């Protein structure tokens, strides 16, 4: 094993990203799909931080992006959960297979 650097963090970030996507594809419960999206967002944050650290260590822009993404993710999660609860009320289920209204 070698000393961890940018490549290693990129590997973790990419892997986490595609794990999230895999989860998004295969999960049928809307809440677990939301969790997959959180993983995807986190992998992006990790990317920002890693590039900030290794490529432009004297700047802080990556940091700010991460902060904003976290803030927006929080808002997004809140809205998503509101939608899920609303959906649960009308469809009595939060299974994504049962919400085919987009077909029409």
């Amino acid at each position, binding site marked *: 094993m070698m000393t961890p650097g940018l490549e290693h963090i990129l590997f973790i970030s990419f892997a986490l990203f*595609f794990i999230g996507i895999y989860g998004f594809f295969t999960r049928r419960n809307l809440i677990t799909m939301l969790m997959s999206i959180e993983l995807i967002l986190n992998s992006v944050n990790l990317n920002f931080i890693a590039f900030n650290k290794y490529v432009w260590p004297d700047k802080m822009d990556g940091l700010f992006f991460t902060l904003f993404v976290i803030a927006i993710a929080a808002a997004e999660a*809140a809205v998503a959960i*509101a939608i899920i609860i609303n959906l649960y009320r009308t469809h009595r289920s939060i299974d994504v297979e049962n919400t085919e209204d987009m077909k029409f």
Partner: protein
Amino acid sequence: MTGNDIIFYLLGILTLGCGLLSVTSRHIFRAAVFLLFSLIGIAGIYFWLQYEFIAAVQIVVYAGGITVLIIFSIFLTQQAGEKLPIQKLNRKIFSALAVFCAFALALVQAYQHGFITNNKPAASPSVQDIGNQMLNVNETGYALPFEAVSILLLAALVGCIVIAIREKNNTNNISENQNVETSQK
């Protein structure tokens, strides 16, 4: 291999392993807990990169806020002890294949690119530096995005309430919610 490296690898394994479990576990509550650990692992990597403020924000917002929110909604919508339905095998295989191809493509591209790394000793930014630049109005300042995000948060707050608000004269919904509440007890 120094202790520093070992910590990094351990954090990486924690993050990826918990992430993987979080998207495959059939118990939704466990999935949420694995997500929590995965997020904590990422916070650990931030610590390891010496970005303490971001790590703190990560723990406070993600681990403390969003995960709790998710667990809360699980309580609202899920019967206790119920397993998640199994996805079709076809779908799983196809998704895994597509995801793997995309992952390979992205990784190969990223490694081939060869980013020019800068090995200057990173000045670990203090909270004061971050605060100064965040609320600065000169060309490097982030005051405008900050304000925009604050409006976004407000909008999201209002939106959540509007979406989730209970319709008054819909007796059906009320009884459903009562059912949910009783089942939770």
